[in-house]
């Protein structure tokens, strides 16, 4: 076993552990830590596709939305079957993966043929189209959405249901982020990582070299989308116990994911957690210091970062530690 391969996971997992411990021990910090772990998790999931391929999926939030629907449908329809017990949640997670995974297969097979701006526009189209299909055809409750807090209480009792949405939902998010980090590392260190790097630098050249770019693109896309579905299922469905189409298909969530990935450093393992923490904390502080004006201050900062530091925090840090003993901890 060459454990040294897994050293870069140490700072990432330490980060998640610290988040959990601060939330658990300091009173009143749990909500903030939950928000931070959500941002780290979406960054980690989105990075697998956006960071590694350089394709900008502007409709990424659609996968989170479908995951949310997966969990919501499971709870809203199966809550009366008593012997299922906690199995309802498991089925919810399975449905979340299936639904977001299936959509990603469909989108991937079709839209991944497009490149650059055309791909970005096509994915916005998928996101909006899906939202209006649900609203227009009155699918899954249409624009009224699904509210299932009553069903959750009925299935598990008030105590467990409360614990599920105020504690376990957030722990699941951290757990998903941790698995996503492991998968990211395996991708980066594996054959797929080399293929995707070649693809990101020059797709034509990669093709000529005999790399099956389509295959690797789709693998990264489906993996990233499934994690998004899982995050939606826990951070939105279990935590909030409702789902409304205008909320879960909101494009600004995609933009938040992009900011996190770019801030931390696209394609790096440590980037999403660094980006997620910086983004989450600065958003939180701005909301506290200048309530109502946080976007006014945030927008120019984002523009400044894009223009001045396009490779992100970890990207710059990586160059600094090259050749030192820290090198094997940072990718």
């Amino acid at each position: 076993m060459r454990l040294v391969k897994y050293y870069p996971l140490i700072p990432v997992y330490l980060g998640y552990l610290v988040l959990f411990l601060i939330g658990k021990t300091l009173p009143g910090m749990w909500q903030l830590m939950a928000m931070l772990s959500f941002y780290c998790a979406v960054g980690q999931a989105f990075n697998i596709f956006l960071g590694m391929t350089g394709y900008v999926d502007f409709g990424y939030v659609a996968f989170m939305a479908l995951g949310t629907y997966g969990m919501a449908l499971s709870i809203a329809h199966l809550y009366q079957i008593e012997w299922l017990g906690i199995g309802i949640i498991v089925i919810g997670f399975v449905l979340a993966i299936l639904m977001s995974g299936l959509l990603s297969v469909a989108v991937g097979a079709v839209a991944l043929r497009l490149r650059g701006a055309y791909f970005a526009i096509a994915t916005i189209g998928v996101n909006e189209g899906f939202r209006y299909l649900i609203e227009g055809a009155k699918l899954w409750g249409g624009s009224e959405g699904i509210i299932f807090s009553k069903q959750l209480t009925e299935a598990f009792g008030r105590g467990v249901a409360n614990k599920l949405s105020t504690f376990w939902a957030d722990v699941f998010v951290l757990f998903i982020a941790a698995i996503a980090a492991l998968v990211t590392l395996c991708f980066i260190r594996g054959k797929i990582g080399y293929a995707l790097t070649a693809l990101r630098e020059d797709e034509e050249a990669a093709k000529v070299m005999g790399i099956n770019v389509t295959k690797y693109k789709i693998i990264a896309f489906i993996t990233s989308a499934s994690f998004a579905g899982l995050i939606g299922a826990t951070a939105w469905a279990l935590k909030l116990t409702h789902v409304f189409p205008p909320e879960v298909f909101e494009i600004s969530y995609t933009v938040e994911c992009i900011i996190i990935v770019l801030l931390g450093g696209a394609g790096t393992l440590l980037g999403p957690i660094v980006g997620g923490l910086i983004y989450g904390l600065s958003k939180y502080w701005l909301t506290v210091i200048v309530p109502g004006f946080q976007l006014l201050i945030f927008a120019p900062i984002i523009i400044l970062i894009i223009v001045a530091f396009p490779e992100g925090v970890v990207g710059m840090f990586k160059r600094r530690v090259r050749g030192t003993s820290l090198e094997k901890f940072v990718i």
Partner: protein
Amino acid sequence: MIWNQLAGNLTQGLILGGVYGMATMGLSLIFGVLRVVNVGHGAFIMVGAFAALWLFTALGITPIVAIPIALIIGIALGFVFFYLVMKKLVGAPELTSLLATFAMGILLEEVVKLIFGTEYRGYNWDVGRVDLSVTVLPWAKIYAFLGSVAIAVLLYLWFNKTRAGTAVRSVVEDSEGARVCGVNVGWVYALSFAIGIGLTVASGVLLTMFIPVGINPYMGGPYTLKAFVIAVLGGLASPYGAFFGGLIFGLIENGSYTLFALLPGAEPFALTRFLSFVILLVILLIKPTGLLGAK
């Protein structure tokens, strides 16, 4: 009965479509020259709408006169954003330019919110109406349509009859080749971005004739999405394509609304939106150069 209604709605759709087309020409021009999708497009339309509102209610300037004023404001805004931000992002990965234009949009929205607040506003420019038997059209909307056509024609003439326009076209064709032939490509980027933003802001003035009480800092989002569909219909990189794409989109939007309203138990408005994105995807896959574009 239904045919009358359909004919009426299609007429309205054509009029609105002309304005949609004009509102998308800036997006296509910027994409054609800089290869950047302006995700903050709708926010610039919103700026134009507020300019029209303020000029009309505070200074009594009619929207027709407001169009050139908005165009100048937009061109100035375009130059400022180009030299502060976009100049460094031309040719960079999509990720950065998409995020930068989105952030510009947020910035504009928040600045306008700071000045005007978030309530819905509107104004009424009443210059009579004309009865077409199938529908009644206010003259204001007809003026907006004629204004759009006039601007499209002027842009066409500028492209084809002036040196600057020819330089822009050469950069659209092949920026390397244009550079070799002595075209100042950096200046063409700046000029095209500024004119693209100028057109977009001016189109915001025209759109206010269709939304009597819909002016709000966050009104731009739906227009950004519509502009994407329209731009793709027209081939994404061609401003005239965008104009005709707008006409087609206006017809489809209003026509399909009439038909979807006949379906029992459906929400016609949402289905219309759904249809527009289906069209977007189909065209991107089958003919990404647009309905009118070359092969």
